[in-house]
């Protein structure tokens, strides 16, 4: 089921002007705060009414200003996960979960209900009131509540933004499982590059109410014209596989012919893992460095050199693990006399790869 829209919405001092085709999978609406991504999401949900345009989900028209169609929120059949969980405080967890099921057109089967509750690990919370839950538990219940309403698509508005680092890490895998196991189309708003890197099958980059571009997570996140913050936000997504856990608190990942050493991951050996490496954490050397503390040295050839207006430049290396972007200064670029096709080495500090940048898939 694909979502297509072209909408215009005016606010005081801000206008949203977006045209978008959302394919299946998990699509991340990505951009700095104030870029209009939440407004876009609310328009899809029906919580905000655009002035002009149309929104279509599969063969159903949700909104069309020309044909005067504006399906009310409760008839759109979309699940919504808010940044603040918005659980009903007077109802137990169980009643919160069942709330949407009561109204659902496609009521989920009992087996699916149990699978969802099992997957989210909330079966032991059923009798509790929302006030007695932790932030992460609350958000898991909110996610379950949305899923049990049998939605055609799930909308999530920065669902992890209100949580601390540990809770974030606890919740991210659930979204990965939704993407991989339930095959539910998801539209996910975030300004966090690591969330986008871990979760997205497609990234839509937004800025100042416009869609800058869209593509696979690897494409968009490595493109300085699409990433918020320009060159500073650029990073590489590497597809790796867990090769070995060592007992000094590190894990080795198989990345092409090279090995990447990262802080210990929980996934068992053999699990495919996405690793995001920020371009500014990569050092480029023309010779294999000796006597260096960094554990990750990948060899490759210079594929592209890109310079922007600032003092920074992006060097893209072709390594056996795929393309790898490094952000260096233009001065270093001149000093190293880098040119396309040249062999060189990329150095990545193990500890610079944050745990939240390591994701399944």
């Amino acid at each position: 089921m694909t979502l297509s829209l072209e909408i215009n919405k005016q606010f005081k001092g801000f206008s949203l002007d977006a045209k978008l085709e959302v394919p299946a999978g998990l699509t991340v609406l990505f951009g700095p705060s104030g870029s209009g991504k939440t407004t876009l999401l609310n328009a899809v949900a029906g919580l905000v009414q655009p002035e002009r345009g149309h929104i279509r989900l599969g063969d159903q028209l949700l909104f069309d200003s020309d044909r005067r169609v504006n399906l009310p929120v409760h008839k759109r059949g979309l699940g919504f996960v808010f940044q603040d969980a918005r659980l009903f405080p007077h109802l137990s967890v169980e009643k919160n979960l069942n709330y949407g099921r009561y109204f659902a057109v496609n009521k989920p089967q009992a087996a699916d209900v149990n699978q969802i509750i099992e997957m989210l690990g909330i079966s032991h919370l059923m009798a509790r009131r929302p006030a007695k839950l932790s932030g992460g538990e609350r958000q898991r219940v909110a996610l379950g509540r949305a899923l049990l309403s049998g939605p055609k698509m799930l909308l999530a508005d920065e669902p992890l933004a209100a949580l601390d680092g540990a809770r974030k890490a606890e919740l991210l895998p659930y979204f990965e499982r939704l993407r991989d196991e339930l095959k539910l189309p998801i539209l996910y708003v975030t300004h966090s590059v690591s969330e986008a890197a871990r979760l997205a099958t497609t990234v839509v980059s937004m800025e100042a109410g416009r869609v800058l571009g869209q593509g696979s997570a690897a494409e968009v996140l490595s493109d300085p014209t699409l990433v918020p913050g320009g060159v500073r936000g650029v990073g590489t997504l590497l597809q790796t596989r867990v090769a070995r856990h060592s007992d000094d608190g590190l894990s080795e990942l198989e990345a092409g012919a090279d090995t990447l050493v990262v802080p210990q991951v929980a996934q068992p050996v053999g699990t495919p893992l996405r690793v995001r490496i920020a371009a500014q954490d990569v050092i480029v050397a023309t010779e294999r460095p000796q006597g260096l503390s960094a554990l990750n040295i990948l060899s490759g050839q210079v594929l592209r050199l890109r310079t922007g207006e600032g003092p920074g430049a992006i060097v893209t290396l072709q390594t056996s693990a795929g393309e790898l972007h490094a952000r260096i200064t233009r001065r270093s670029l001149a000093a190293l006399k880098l040119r396309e096709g040249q062999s060189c080495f990329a150095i990545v500090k193990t500890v610079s790869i944050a745990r939240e940048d390591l994701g399944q898939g």
Partner: protein
Amino acid sequence: MSWLGPQEWQAVALSLKVAFWATLVSLPFAILVAYALARGRFYGRQLLNVLVHLPLVMPPVVTGYLLLILFGSQGALGGVLEAIGLPLAFRWTGAVLAAAIMAFPLMVRAIRLSLEAVDPRLEEAASTLGASRIWAFSTVTLPLAVPGILAGSVLGFAKAMGEFGATITFVSNIPGETQTLPSAVYAFLQVPGGESSAVKLVIIAVAIAVGALLASEYLAQRVARKASGE
């Protein structure tokens, strides 16, 4: 209640009956108006607000006189109601209307406060789960506001029990039909030797007022706790 004479007892019973019906009849309208004032963004909202509060600030005798003009036998609405078998003038039903109108602003204020304490984004969440506006209101906002609605009702009931000015102007002071507790106190004070009866009724009136205020305060505290989900 052997220390109450038949006329005194009649007045207390009638007052309870009038106040009960006045509260019951006002309540749905009070909830509706309170919701409109709390959440609505419509043209004329301020006018509605003023209209609702008018009986609170106008002299009750003026309210009673306006009721007499509108709902008396010769009145525009009174004739219609009489034709369908609901006469109001000089009947206990008229006392109910007068008490209901006088209690209405107090009920609306209490209910409005409790509705405003409920996060409107919860209704938004309910609508994304498939609940229509009316369902979202009645399954989320209304239950969360119940203590406030009860508090408003208690206050309204007490106000209806004590209503005097509008009632006596609109439906007079007929023992057994429209002589409510305050009217009876007034009547006893007009005749020599009636003071002991008046004092008994005054004690009952004070007891009801104190009880109502305590109950309303207790319920108001529960609103805050319930809205925060404790």
